[in-house]
């Protein structure tokens, strides 16, 4: 059994259990949380380097060989996602030391956070589709708890929608898993790919594929299934919003990438080029238009999550090596940038006690470094060179041009422009205009915990710059990932053994 595959799940799960045991001791919980965040990041780096040097890694749980037991598999996509989970987990663990109130900590913030990270890592690493459902549920139950931490009215309202839609999506997922098992008689993803590859009823498979698309589409907040996200993501404390914004929807996107590159590739013309493409285009457009209409920082950012999901979906929908590479690049760039933007919105809140753009102002004068730090992820999100977002958008759009998908190209460019508009709106309102009279400055640069707040923001901004300036290396990595995804035989052989040896 390969330890590199187990550690990213085991470390946060252990931390969740230990922090639960240390319920009374806040400081112990905080130290455990930092240790677990660091451990997850180190485990992620280790896993990534292993996968990079040795190819796809496989571990059979309980030594039950492939189609029977639960398999953990890490290809490049999984490894990248686990690595980014570690980055986000550690950043949020540091940031929440300064922002979580005693009340939030007393109601189990740290156990829930780490159990959620364990669920996320598990979902990225599993090679069994029912096990994927189980990890989804672990992640969701923990996120439900995080969502209502504090128990304000807005959180209750947001949580009701979040819980309902996610449970509906889980039920659809379970339905699809049941039908798939009834059709193929297996749940191992590699085995499924093999069995569906020479199936007799492509129509039935397409129906099941559509069920999966709806189930994962709800989780990924794709058009027209995204309405729960802008209703709920801005309600919890900002550290929680940041980790949700960074990771949770991307688990849905990851599941779409995995399932629609490995299992459901019978009818690419319909499932990918038509349905996913339309979903992606409308997701981009509706998300950004929603964002343009908002005047509250976290709501603008929430709508932008939706909009950026669209780029990832069109990357998958085009289904060429370059497009998938663009989509993968987009996923890891977006997780870092979006987490960072939410963390920065938390710092903005500490200056003036509001997320409302009408009540913010003058931050450039009071906190020029914050303004600079905001510009990096904001411009990256909008796709200004040489930041990471430019290369992500460029790759996706170039793939669209090469395929002649002109509608997608045009709308992607327009959405980039509108993204820039709403980022400039935040800049102009919160940083540039003078402070309105009704706003009261709360704490300025004398904030005693500002190092804890700024450290993750600076590190994430530096990563955005690194991805942008060293884009060549990251694009090559994405192309390798895309090559792995587009060649399912490698995955199948890694899990089940050489193809010829099985009858």
């Amino acid at each position, binding site marked *: 059994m390969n330890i590199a595959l187990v550690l990213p799940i085991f470390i946060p799960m252990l931390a969740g259990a230990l922090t639960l045991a240390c319920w009374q001791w806040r400081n112990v919980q905080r130290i455990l949380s930092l240790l677990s965040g660091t451990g997850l990041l180190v485990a992620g780096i280790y896993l990534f380097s292993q996968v990079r040097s040795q190819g796809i890694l496989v571990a059979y749980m309980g030594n039950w060989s492939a189609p029977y037991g639960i398999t953990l598999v890490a290809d490049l996509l999984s490894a990248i996602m686990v690595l980014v989970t570690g980055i986000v987990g550690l950043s949020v663990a540091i940031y929440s030391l300064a922002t979580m109130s005693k009340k939030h900590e007393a109601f189990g913030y740290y156990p829930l956070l780490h159990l959620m990270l364990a669920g996320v890592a598990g979902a990225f690493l599993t090679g069994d589709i029912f096990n994927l459902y189980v990890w989804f549920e672990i992640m*969701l139950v923990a996120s439900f*708890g995080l969502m209502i931490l504090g128990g*304000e009215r807005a959180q*209750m309202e947001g949580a009701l929608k979040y819980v309902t839609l996610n*449970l509906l999506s889980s*039920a659809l997922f379970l339905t699809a*898993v049941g039908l798939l*098992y009834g059709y193929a008689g297996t749940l191992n993803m590699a085995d499924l790919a093999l069995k569906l590859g020479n199936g007799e009823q492509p129509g039935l498979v397409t129906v099941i594929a559509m069920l999966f698309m709806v189930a994962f589409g709800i989780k990924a907040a794709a058009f027209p299934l995204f309405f729960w996200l802008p209703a709920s993501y801005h309600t919890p404390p900002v550290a929680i919003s940041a980790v949700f914004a960074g990771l949770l929807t991307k688990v849905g996107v990851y599941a779409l990438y995995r399932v629609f590159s490995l299992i459901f590739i019978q009818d690419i013309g319909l499932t990918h080029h038509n349905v996913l493409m339309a979903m992606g285009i409308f997701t981009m457009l509706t998300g950004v238009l929603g964002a343009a209409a908002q005047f509250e920082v976290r709501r603008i950012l929430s709508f932008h999550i939706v909009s950026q999901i669209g780029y990832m979906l069109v990357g998958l929908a085009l289904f060429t090596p370059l497009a998938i590479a663009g989509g993968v690049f987009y996923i890891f760039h977006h997780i870092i940038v979006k987490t960072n933007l939410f963390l920065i919105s938390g710092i903005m809140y500490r200056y003036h006690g509001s997320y409302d753009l009408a009540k913010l102002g003058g931050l450039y004068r009071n906190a020029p470094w914050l303004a600079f730090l905001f510009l990096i992820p904001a411009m990256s999100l909008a796709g200004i060179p040489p930041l990471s977002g430019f290369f992500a958008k460029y790759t996706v759009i170039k793939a669209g041009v090469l395929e002649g998908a002109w509608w997608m190209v045009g709308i992607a460019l327009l959405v980039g422009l509108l993204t820039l508009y709403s980022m400039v709106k935040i800049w102009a309102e919160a940083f540039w205009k003078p402070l309105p009279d009704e706003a009261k400055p709360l704490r300025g640069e004398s904030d005693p915990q500002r190092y804890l707040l700024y450290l993750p923001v600076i590190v994430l901004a530096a990563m955005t710059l690194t991805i942008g300036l060293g884009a060549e290396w990251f694009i090559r990595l994405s192309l390798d990932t895309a090559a792995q995804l587009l060649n399912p035989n490698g995955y199948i052989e890694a899990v089940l053994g050489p193809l010829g040896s099985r009858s």
Partner: protein
Amino acid sequence: MENLFAFVIGALYATALFMMLRRSIVKLVIGLMILSNAANLLILSAGGLVRGAPPLIAEHLEQVTGPIADPLPQALILTAIVISFGVLAFAVVLIHRAYEVIGADDMNEMKSTDL
């Protein structure tokens, strides 16, 4: 048997969605409960229904002979029941708290976090 199951599953899905579309949050949670049970029954029937054949291999034998129930759907449903039970327990507590905080059982009163 399969026909009966098909009717029951279809009726459960329909009832669940109908309940979820009501404005009352109590009915919403009842809808979610029914929905998870509908999905569980669907897995059971998709795995193949067998009457009176346990998923056991007879003594002295290496393989099964004759009809056998597929144990995997039962294992899946067992897992799914545990998960949905936990989640529903959470949902029930949530609507109780939401009712206390908001003071209404009506989804129409809960639009302040929307657009």
